[in-house]
């Protein structure tokens, strides 16, 4: 996918463009707000990565301008500002997701991939299917190989989120934000315990596991572990 990075720090930018290319994406870079807005207007990007504090035109103004012009390209806001209401401001301006510096590259990559509408397979589907695992979003019924699986409401939402992003790495923070709506890191890694509970219901009595752990990043639901 095509990613536009608007970031004034040269070192960060060159690290990110290189890393994104290694991850199989096509990354372009703009070093200031005005250039960034110009490039973003030309369109054809799947995701915009915009730093909040930029020379000439700040990040939130770029997003605001784009949205006013009807440009709906998903935006991930990168910011050194992590104040309580900064996140809200970023999302209000039209950003789709917010990531505070310093961040792990795996986190950034997972979020970029989750944002791209082109690569989300199950955003609108009423039935999410991964291998023989089926989740019916209308009846909230989950079956594997035809056998019904009983899930707690939160387990259902956890599985739904993972299956919506089937094939994509989903980080612990993303799960905490999207399934629990908590925007902070608990000191204990609570997500692992929840995923392992879910795993015991989904994968335990079957040969092929569907929920996989991605070391240093998070989890992914997919048919094979290749």
């Amino acid at each position, binding site marked *: 996918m095509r990613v536009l990075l608007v970031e004034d720090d040269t070192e960060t930018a060159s690290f990110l463009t290189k890393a994104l290319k290694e991850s199989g994406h096509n990354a372009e870079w703009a070093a200031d707000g005005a250039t960034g807005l110009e490039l973003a207007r030309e369109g054809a990007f799947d995701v915009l990565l915009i730093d909040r504090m930029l020379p000439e035109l700040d990040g939130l103004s770029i997003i605001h301008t784009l949205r006013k012009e009807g440009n709906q390209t998903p935006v991930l806001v990168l910011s050194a500002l992590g*104040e*309580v209401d900064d996140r809200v401001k970023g999302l209000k301006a039209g950003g789709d997701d917010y990531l505070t510096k310093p961040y792990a590259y795996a986190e950034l990559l997972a979020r970029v991939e989750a944002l791209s509408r082109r690569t989300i397979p199950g955003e609108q589907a009423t039935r999410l299917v991964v291998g023989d695992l089926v989740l019916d979003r209308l009846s909230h019924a989950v079956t594997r190989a035809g056998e019904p699986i009983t899930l707690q409401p939160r387990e259902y939402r956890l599985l739904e989120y993972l299956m919506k992003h089937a094939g994509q790495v989903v980080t612990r923070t993303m799960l905490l934000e999207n399934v629990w709506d908590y925007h902070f890191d608990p000191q204990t890694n609570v997500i692992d315990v929840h995923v392992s509970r879910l795993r015991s219901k989904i994968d335990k009595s079957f040969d092929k596991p569907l929920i996989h752990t991605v070391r240093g990043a998070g989890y992914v639901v997919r048919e094979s572990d290749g």
Partner: protein
Amino acid sequence: MKVTGSPSRATFATTVFGLSALAVASFLVVTAALFALAIWQVNRVFVADILDALSAEAEALLASSDYGEPDALREAIKRLSKKSDTRLYYLSDPSGSKSAGNLASIPPKLAAGTSGGLFKYRYQNGPVSGERTAAGLPVHLKNGGLLVVARDIEVQRALIWWMRLLAFAAFAVIALGGLGLGFLASRSVLSRVDRLTSATRTIMDGDLSGRLPVQGSGDEFDRLSQSVNEMLTRIEHLMHGLKEVSDNIAHDLKTPLNRLRQRAESTLRTAKTQKDLAAGLGQTIEAADEIIKTFNALLLIARLEAGAIEKTKSPVPLARVLSDAAELYEPVAEEAGLSLSVAETADVTLRANRQLIGQAVINLIDNAIKYGRNTSANSTKSGLETPKSGEVTIRLQRREGCAEITVADDGPGISSADRVRAMERFVRLDKSRSLPGTGLGLSLVAAVARLHGGELRLEDNHPGLKAVLSFPL
């Protein structure tokens, strides 16, 4: 009383002095007017009385000589004039020349008129000389002559003069006394102000432990000093916190930074294979993540203490916050061999930042699970029934106008001496040093509580620790 830099000028410039001077001046104006009126009235009554007496005397004189000769009147006047006292007489014949009396002459104005009046004269046959004042009454005789009966009124005038003098003396005393008192009052005010000023100077020079003097009289200065002192206590506390944080940053961030550096160095030095390098770098990244976590927690607390999250507040149903947090941590507690339950809830909605309240509750639960494990759970106390160990109980109650969230465990607890310290930044009680954590959890909870006008209390759960988050409703 302490004498100040330029005492007199500063004293006169005070509000107190200005006000007392104004009060004295207006008092003087009013009393002067009253005194003037009184003296004028007394004077008038005196003169009127004397003229009445003169009129009676003249009548008596005329009556005694009316059927006698005019000579009889002259003789009578002559006789009366010989007595040297305050009675004065003047008699002229029809030609207008003086025929008898102890007055040398009569002012023309009095001689021409018919009503009595005051005039000046010179005392002739007495030991006293000089110009004196008298009240006289002219009587025009039938034969065309003139009789003037008069009375020296110097004694009365002296009395009035004394009254005036007394009034002026009183005014002088009042004016000087009033201004003097005003001066003293402003001196005392100034000296208090100066003491306050010098105390604030000391404080401004960096000694934040200094306080403004409070006399204990409860007057306006004491009240001012007390509220300033309270402010200073808060500032001192904040400054102390700031200093502590910078000390702690130095310590708690330098240590992991050093660890990070050492790991990178040792990897560089010892790694033989690609795999060694990868493992070393992985460890380095983990160390960096720990530093970031600590740093983020520190920043968050600093921001919370600076306040200003009002805009991010919205009505938050607290029961929901508790059930969400409990649901998130229930599996974690179970893995740790504890049971976690919400024992009691109430229908309470608080204007709050949901994320922060959630984080505070989660920190408390996290602590309860981490430190609440009763390591000596099986050692029974003799005679007492052992409480079922390994329980974390969450409660939401309404109490005395407050919403109270309680997270209680039945673990080893914290001794009362350590409870306050436990809420301070970076304080990790010895027992917890080996467990992972930033040492900022409870101070973050306390900061969140303060930000919502509430407080965090640590209490004894008999056994265990009971953390109470209390918010006023």
